[in-house]
Every structure is written in structure tokens, then in C-alpha cells.
């Protein structure tokens, strides 16, 4: 080994080291700029690095399935939980949107009738044999609903609560002949009575009867509740006038009304549980002219009329006897 350190080979290696040291100093002084040997070597090295990267990608892609199986499994489980959570949030989001729309409807209703108390309800059943659009809602007495309560949507009047249980209620709509709602046409202030008929219900229409023969109501007029009976708040939109004709009696006129609400298509409604000026539901349905008609009242009138007729016959017989 001693002769190596005295040989030319050792001196050549020392010279090479000195050159390398010089190259390093030069490279450091240029602030990292590549020297010529470095550039030449990098040109030769880059293709090999690209080739190795391709090999590496193929290698890792193939074996990552096995090496990362556990991580992939855990990530998969976590993602499933995240998806379930997102689905739950999506349902909540949809519910929030629906509730938002319904609250907007409430707001619109309350703008015109700030005193009304509303209970929202969902329609849970429609009788297929009913041709007047009657339906059942999912709220009842425990939610503050009682018979005769008006039922509305943000678009307008739907009907009234005809019977109620603890957690459900049946609604009779304005297409039914059994309903009677005091109404008024906004432009001409013409008053009348909203009630349904079978032939109009087929077309989704209702009618406004007992209109004065000289009424100036026109087609397209807006019809709202009059609010004088105490069973419906005032200014609840009922619909628009579709056509006007003379009634069968020839004394009054009848208007066909296009309801503002799509009676057969609605899914949610609001029940007006209270409003300023509300009458008790124990009395009969009152028309806007103050007269009343109900089964009970008609029986009472019948009894009273029979009683009065008996009284009159007794008095006449007594008169006769006196005579």
C-alpha cells in the first residue's frame, strides 16, 4: 500500500479531489446554479428517473392493494359513515326547505291576518270514493284543532274541519255542497255564499250563489272570505270568478269560482285554530246575512213550528169553544 501513496495514481486522485473541491466552491458561489458537469449528468440521469418513476407507479399501484388493504378498509368504513351522516343531513335539509316554505306561507297569511293562530298539518289520507276532495290530516284535538276550524294554505281557503279525533281530523273542502262560506268579491264588494256542487266539483270548481241580479261582478274578480259569520277570518282568498249566470230561480245570479288552491294536489295545510272574532263551533254554520242553517237548527225550527202550530190549533179550538 505504501507504494500507492507514492504513485502517480494517488496524485491523480488528489488532483481530482482538488478539482471537485473547486467545482463545489464555484457552485456554492453561484448561489446554486448548476455547473456544466452537473447539467450534462442531469441530462443523462433524467430519462432513467422517468423510467424509474413509471416502474415505481406500476409497482406501487399493484402492491398498494395489498399493503394498504387495511387502511383502505378503514377509510371505506369511515366514508360509509360519512355518507350515512350526509344522507341524514340531506333529509334534514329537505325538511328545513319544506318547513321554510311553509313558514313563508304562514308569514304571507299573517301579513293579511296578523291575529290568526295556525297549526300546520300534513294530509295523510284521501277517500277515493269522495268526489269533493275531502281528506284527513295528521293533527287533532291534542294539537288544538276543533270542529269548524277553517283550513287554508298559503294560496287560499281549502275548507273546514268537519270532524276531529285526538290525532286526526277530516276536512270538507269548498268543492262540497255541504259547505257554506260567506264571501265577497273584492272589486265590487258583492257578497254571496260559497258552496259546492257535484257537477262543478268534477271540474275542480265551486260556486258563489245568492248574488244580486244587478251585480257588477266580472270574470277574473278576486273572491275572499267576508269574515262576518265568525267562522272564517276575513280576506282569506277563495278564488277567482270564472263565469257568471242567472240562477234557476231567475231572481239571483250564480258565479262559478276557480279555487285559488289546487284542492286535489295539496300535501300540507294550515288549520286556523283561533282568530280575532272567532265564533264558537257549537252554533250552526252562519251565513253572512245572519241566518243560520244546520240539522239541529232545522229540527228545532221544525219542533218550534209544530209547537206553534199546536198552539195555534189549541187557541183556535179554545176560541171556537169560547165562541
Amino acid at each position, binding site marked *: 500500500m505504501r507504494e500507492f501513496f507514492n504513485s502517480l495514481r494517488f496524485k491523480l486522485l488528489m488532483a481530482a479531489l482538488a478539482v471537485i473541491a473547486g467545482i*463545489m466552491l464555484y457552485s456554492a458561489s453561484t448561489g446554486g446554479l448548476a455547473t456544466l458537469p452537473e447539467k450534462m449528468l442531469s441530462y443523462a440521469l433524467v430519462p432513467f428517473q422517468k423510467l424509474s418513476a413509471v416502474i415505481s407507479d406500476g409497482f406501487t399501484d399493484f402492491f398498494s392493494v395489498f399493503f394498504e388493504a387495511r387502511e383502505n378498509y378503514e377509510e371505506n368504513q369511515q366514508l360509509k359513515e360519512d355518507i350515512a351522516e350526509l344522507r341524514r343531513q340531506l333529509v334534514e335539509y329537505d325538511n328545513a326547505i319544506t318547513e321554510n316554505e311553509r313558514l313563508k306561507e304562514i308569514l304571507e297569511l299573517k301579513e293579511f291576518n296578523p291575529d290568526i293562530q295556525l297549526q300546520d298539518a300534513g294530509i295523510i289520507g284521501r277517500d277515493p270514493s269522495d268526489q269533493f276532495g275531502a281528506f284527513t290530516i295528521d293533527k287533532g284535538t291534542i294539537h288544538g284543532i276543533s270542529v269548524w276550524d277553517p283550513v287554508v294554505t298559503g294560496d287560499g281557503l281549502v275548507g273546514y274541519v268537519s270532524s276531529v279525533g285526538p290525532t286526526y281530523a277530516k276536512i270538507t273542502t269548498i268543492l262540497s255542497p255541504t259547505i257554506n262560506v260567506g264571501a265577497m268579491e273584492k272589486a265590487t264588494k258583492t257578497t254571496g255564499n260559497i258552496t259546492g256542487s257535484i257537477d262543478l266539483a268534477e271540474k275542480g270548481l265551486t260556486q258563489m250563489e245568492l248574488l244580486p241580479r244587478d251585480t257588477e261582478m266580472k270574470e277574473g274578480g278576486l273572491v275572499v272570505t267576508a269574515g262576518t259569520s265568525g267562522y272564517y277570518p276575513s280576506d282569506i282568498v277563495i278564488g277567482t270568478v270564472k263565469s257568471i249566470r242567472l240562477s234557476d230561480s231567475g231572481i239571483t245570479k250564480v258565479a262559478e269560482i276557480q279555487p285559488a288552491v289546487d284542492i286535489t294536489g295539496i300535501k300540507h295545510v294550515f288549520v286556523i285554530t283561533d282568530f280575532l272574532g272567532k265564533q264558537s263551533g257549537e252554533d250552526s254554520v252562519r251565513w253572512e246575512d245572519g241566518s243560520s242553517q244546520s240539522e239541529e237548527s232545522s229540527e228545532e225550527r221544525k219542533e218550534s213550528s209544530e209547537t206553534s202550530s199546536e198552539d195555534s190549533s189549541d187557541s183556535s179550538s179554545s176560541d171556537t169553544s169560547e165562541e
Partner: protein
Amino acid sequence: MEMRKSTRTTIKWGLYVLLLFFLCGLQSAPGLFSIWGVKPVLVIPMAVAVAFFEREVATGIYGLLAGFLWDISAGKLFGFYGMVVMVCCVVVTLLTMYCIRVNLINILIACLTVSLLCGLWDYVFYNLLWNYEGVGLYFWKMLARTFYTTLWMPPIYYLVRWITGLFSPSVRA
């Protein structure tokens, strides 16, 4: 037809250089051979393996080339690793020629030593001198890289030995 000695030598060294470029590409491939973030430096076993079978000037130049390639792929100052790898390869060749046998144990010790020296060289001049935070953690990672690099020595050694046996009349043993 027998090849001339110069032709054999040229082909042999051509293969050595190609293999060196290929291994340098492999060591810098993203994610390849990585175990918990530790990757081997494949040019060191290659340079040390060649140092066991060739003469000192040739292995010195070959070690210098290996170090240069490592400098380029690692983004270090050009010549930083070249200098130390060159010196180590010359020392290994001299030891092989005059002191030690060519066997697997000596080869593993040589690779471990060269790898450790290169790692300490980098640790001192690129980390300790600048007083970086977490420099202790880097030291342990450097040690892990050293041992992982040494694990690659046997296959590379036998490959170089095979190439040498193909193109040289005799193999140092």
C-alpha cells in the same frame, strides 16, 4: 471470436455506468422501496461493489460519478457526496487489494461504513451546523436509511460479481 480486452472492459464499464444510472433513478422514484418513509441509497452498494473488484483510480472515478448522481437527485451542492463517495471507494479498493478478503461479511461491513460516513457527512454539514429543530430525529432516520441501504448490498454485489466474471479473466476473491 474472442473479444479484445479493451472491448470487454468498455462493455463492462458501460454496463456498470448504465446500472448506476438505473439504480439512481430507482432510488429517486417516488414511493418505491419506501418503508415508513425510509428509502435506500442504491448508488452506495453499487459503488462499493465495484470497488471490491476494480482498481483504485477506476473505482475512484466511478465513486465520484455515483456521488455526483446522488448530488443531482438529492439536490445537494454538486460534489458534496461525490467527494466522500470517491474517497470511500478508493479506500475500500485499497483495503481489498492489501488487507481484507472479498466475502459477504466484509462487503456488508464496507457498505455499512460507507453509508454511515455519507450519512454523517450530510448530517453534520446540512443539519447540525445549521442547528435545525428536530436534528436528533433526522439522525435516527439517517441511521435507519444506513441499515436499509446495507440490506440491498448482497443482490447488487452478486450482480456486479457476475458482470465482472463475464468480462474479466479473473475475479478478485
